[in-house]
Every structure is written in structure tokens, then in C-alpha cells.
């Protein structure tokens, strides 16, 4: 059976939800960050699938923008997480609760 648009979409939707669950459930900041990247890539997959089936290349073009932006984000994010780790000697999310109520 040939692979249609729906299949790609279901895969990207599942990827998106997995990333979302990762962000909510995992405690380690780095793992959370990775699942965020996962969500972005799910969007990339959906975009590529749409542009393939709609015979329109703007989707592909958008993917490049997303990847570059994700890269910038990762750079800044990791620097931030490292600074936090040096300050708190732990990357767990629970003890990040001095700002509340």
C-alpha cells in the first residue's frame, strides 16, 4: 500500500504528542529541551509532507527557517542550562521553585 498524506500526518502528530509528553513528564531540563526539539521536527515533517502533496515548495522553504531558528534556540538554551547547572549544581526541575505564588 502506498504511503499517503494521512500517514505522514499521523506520524508527525504522534511525534508532536511524544515531544509534548516528554516536556511535561521528564524532570531533567536537558531531556525536556530535547523533547522540545522533537516537537519542532514533528512540525517540519508535517510541512514537508504538505508541500509534497500540495506540489508547493513554500513548505520546504519554511523548514529551513525552522531548522536555523531551532539551532539558534538550542545554542542559547544550552548556555543558559549550563549557567544554571553551575549555579545550582543540579539540573532537576523541582528545585527551580524560588519564584512562585
Amino acid at each position, binding site marked *: 500500500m502506498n504511503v499517503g498524506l494521512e500517514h505522514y500526518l499521523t506520524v508527525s502528530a504522534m511525534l508532536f504528542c511524544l515531544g509534548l509528553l516528554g516536556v511535561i513528564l521528564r524532570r531533567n531540563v536537558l531531556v525536556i529541551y530535547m523533547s522540545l526539539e522533537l516537537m519542532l521536527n514533528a512540525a517540519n515533517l508535517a510541512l514537508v509532507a504538505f508541500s509534497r502533496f500540495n506540489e508547493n515548495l513554500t513548505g520546504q522553504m519554511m523548514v529551513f527557517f525552522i531548522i536555523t531558528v531551532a539551532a539558534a534556540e538550542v545554542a542559547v538554551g544550552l548556555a543558559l542550562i549550563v549557567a544554571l547547572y553551575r549555579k545550582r549544581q543540579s539540573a532537576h526541575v523541582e528545585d527551580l*521553585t524560588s519564584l*512562585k505564588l
Partner: protein
Amino acid sequence: MEPAISPAGYAALTILLLPLAAAAFIAFCTQREGERSANLSIGAIALGFVLSLGLFAFTGDQAVETNFNWLAVGDLHVSFGLLLDPLSKLMLLVVTGVGLMIHIYSRGYMSGDRSFRRYFGSLSLFTFSMLGIVLANNLFMMFVFWELVGVSSYLLIGFWFEKNSAADAAKKAFLTNRVGDFGFILGIILTWAAFGSVNFAELNSAVELGGRLADKSAGFSLLAEPLGKIAGGTQWWTVHPNVLVTLVGLLLFMGAMGKSAQFPLHVWLPDAMEGPTPVSALIHAATMVAAGVFMLCRIFFLLNIPGSHALEFIAWIGGFTALLAAVMALQQNDIKRILAYSTLSQLGYMVMAVGLHAPGPAMFHLTTHAAFKALLFLGAGSVIYACHHEQNIWKMGGLRVAMPRTWWTFRWGTLALCGVWPFAGFFSKDAILAAALEHNNIPLFVLGVFVAGLTTFYMSRLVLVAFCGNARSEEASHAHESPGVMTWPLVVLAVPTLLAGAVGIDAYIGKLFPGEHPPHNEGFLNNLFAPFNHNVFAAGFGLLAVVAGYQLARALYVNADRDRLPEKIGVLAKLARDRFYFDELYEWFISVTQETLARVADWVDRWIIAGFLVRGTHGATELFGRALRLVQTGSLQTYAFLFAAGVVLVLAWQLLLQSPAH
């Protein structure tokens, strides 16, 4: 355009405004000189008296009215109007005449007092307001001066405001008057609503017209239906016209009840004795209390509308007050309290007279009473002045010898009050008793005679205890005659006490109230004997009551060292001395209704409206705020979860709820 003011109008205006000018000048200008204020105030009332005499002598009998438009809004037209007719001219004479005597007398009596200036200022203010009532030509203006009289009596009763009793008495007097005024203003509103005007002349013509056109049986027909509808407008108010007219009469009478201290609202007069004695004389004998009776006579045509039952009610209230006050006077030991209750009793007489369709005799009695009651009060004042402010008659005695001039003037006053033949009191009281007979109201006649007896009894008790016998106390023994400025007015007042009866005053008034009683006006001498051939029963029974009263008093009190009456009548004496506990009754009634209501209102205000509603909402929002704030737990995971939940919620709301059919 206001009509051109006649010379009489100018005179009336000056009489009215002089005391006001004096009071204003005293209040603002004379800082230090006490004397100047006394002269000013006396000068003002003296000039007023002279002008009243002039008015009395030269102007004819027809009414002269001068109007200044005071308030004209929509259908409420109130003018600052002065009405000069026989009734008001007579009252002018009474007020300014007696007032002059008392002003002169109080110059001596109050000479030592610290706030001499404030005394004469308030006295002038009182005279101004009293003259205002007398001269007013419409109900609204009368109400304005009604309240001003109430305030000036408040200032005068509370003159020695350091004394707690005086301050309370002043407050009580003002508030009781205010209860009366409450009824009065409602009466005026109802009259205005029913008859379309507050001016006496217009009211009179409206009433006459209504009366003439109405067939007697349906009562006051022509204006009847509109009266009913007009008065209330809403459905349940369309009362039968007779009920409405009676209501108007009673409400207006309520104003008189407050001012003339009639039965339910009489409690303030005895306490008003806290004021200086000349004040008691002026206000609570001659003028202020008489204002109520004067008002009743002035609006008699309203009360007398066929179908109105107000007059019977008034007659009985008057009679009952007379009886009640006389009984209370039996057991009072303070000389001024006795005279106060006697005033109450005589006022009851006058109101009874009005109730018996006899306003003429009522005004006649008012005039004579003003003269001899003022005399008695001033006499009492001179006694108190002599005994160094001792007011208890059982601490006096033997003053007959010590104070000859006070003694014989006081004796004349007592004789006039009891109604002994040649004196003024006899003629006016007889006219009232005759009216009771003519109106064949036997119970009131018997009551009148009995009260005449009681009056003689307590006055003889006073005279025998205070003046005859021997001195019972230190001050009494050293008492000597008061200075000339105080005793001289007594003599002047003694003249009308003797002659007022026969000089034909009732004839002069009779012209105002046609129809009821044929006035006897055949010259001084036959006037002396007129009552006997007019109605021998009334005169005979009157004299009989006087003799009986005197004998009883003589038996009990000649050379008596203590009051032997309680053994005779036991519990009634105790009741009389404590004034039938009316004060306590009112106190209890007020505390039950007004104070509890106030306490409930305050509690509701503090706890329900300000507490529960306002603080409640305040607290609820604050609590809700604190609760909502807990959503910010601080942990990143809950934030992420809430964020995702928010997204799911938004998607669900928009995609599922707003179905595409939209």
C-alpha cells in the same frame, strides 16, 4: 403687582419687625453693654404696644391685608402677608401689652445675671415670632412663625443651660412641640391639596362656596368628590369627604395641642418652669400657649365645615385636659408648678370653648387669662425673688404682712382666676359655661363647674399656705417687698384683672364669629350684671363652685403646718403629685419604639450592610484572589502541563463546541 400698602399695613409691619431688629442688633452689635440691650428690647415692644393701641382705636372693623410674594412655585403660592382684623388686633394688644410689662419686670428680675444680653435677645426674638403668628394671613406663614416660637421658647427655657434640668427641659419642650408641628404641617399640606390655597381669605371663600352649594344631607358635596380624589390620588385614599375634612381639622388641631400643651402633649409645660420666672410668665401664661387657641379661632371656619366631627373631639380633649391639670395642681408644692398646671387647666377651658362652637368666649377668656395669669406669675416671681429663690410654698408663710403690694395684687389675680364676681375671670369663664349650656352639652358643663371648684381649691391652698399663717422658714421671715420696678408692673396688670371682664371685649370679638352668641354691649355698668340675666344657671353654679372650693381649702389649710390632703384622698394625691406618671409612660414608649428601632437600624447598618455585604464581598474577592494565586506553584512541570491543558481547552472549545454548522 403687590397692592399699595395702607398705613395700617405699615404700622403692622413696624410692630412685627421692631423686635426682630432689636434681637439682631443685640446679637451682632452690643458686645459688652448689657443695659443697652434691655432698653432696646423694651423700647421695641413699648413702641409696638403704642402702635397696637393706635391700630385698635382708629382702624375700623374690616380686615386689612398686605401681601409680599414670598414663594410662588407652580400651584404653591405663599405670600409674606399681614392680616389686621379684630381678632389679630386684640391679640396684638395682649401680646405687646403683657409683653411690655414682663420686659420691664425682667429688667429688675434678671439684673444680676451673667448673660443679660442673651436673655433680652431671645425675648425679642420670641416677641417677633409671636407677633408673626398673630399677624400671619396664611397657614404656611403661621407654621414658619410657629416653629420660630418653638425655637425661642427652647432658647429661653434653656437659658441657664449649665443646669442639666434646664437643658433637658428645653430639649423636651422643643421635641414635644415638634410632634405637634408634625401634625400641623401635614394638616397644612392636606388643606393645600384639598382647597388649592393656604391663604385664609381664599380658604374662607372656598369653604363658604362649598357650604352654600352643598345640599346638607350629602355633606360637603360640590367640592366633595374632588377633595377625596385630590387628597390622595391613589385608589385607597378616596375617603368620604367628611372623613377627610375631619382629618384636616384634627391635624391642624394637633399643631395647637403641641403649642398649647393639650392632653397628650402637655408634658413639656410643667418642666418649662426651669426657665426664668418672667419667661414662664410671658411664654407659659400669656402668649405662647395662647397661640394654639388663637390658631383654632383663626381657622374656626375650617373646623366648622358641616360634616366635620373635629369640634367634638376638640371639646372633649379641652375638657379632659382642664380636669387632669386641675387634679395634678392639687398636690404641687412648687409655686410656679401650681401656676403652670393652672395655666394648663385654663387652656383646657379655652379649647373646650372652641370645641363648643364658641370661639368668641374662648378668645375672651384668653384675653382675661393673659392679664391675671401674668399678674400671678410675676407675683410669684417677686415672692421667689424675696425668699431668695425659694419656690416651695411650704417654706413660705406670713408674706401677707411682709409684702403688702405683692399680696393684694396676687389676691386680685387669684380672685380673677377663680371667677369671683366683679373680676375679669368670672365673666369669661361664665361665657364658656353659658356656651356649654346653650350647646346643651351637660357633661362638659358639669365638668367645667367641677374644675372651677378645683381651681378655687388649689389657688386658695396656695394663698393660705404661702401668704397667710406665720413664716415657716428663715428666708420667709426676713422677706421684704420687692423693688419698685418689679411691683409697679403688678399694679398695672391688676387694673385689667379687675375691669377686663365688663369692658365689652367679648362684644368686640363677637363681631368676628357671627351667629353663635348675642354679645352684650350695653355699656360698662349693665355689662357687670349681664351674665346673670343672660344665663343665670351658669353664673349661679359658677359662684357656688367657687364658694364650695374656698370653704374646703379654708378647712384644710388655714394655719396648717403640713399638707393634710393626702390622708383625705389617699392614692389620688400620690398620683397627682407624680403627674399620673405620664412622663415615665412617654419615656417608656419612646424607649420601646424609637430607641429600639434606632438600635436595630444601627445594628443592621453596622453588621448587615457595612459588615456582611461590603466586607463580605471585600473578603470574598480577597480570598478568591489568594486561591487563584496558588495556581502559580513555581514548578516548571506544572506550568508546562497547564500550558498544554490550556491549548487542549482552547482547541476543544473552538472545534467541538462551535460546530461547523455555525
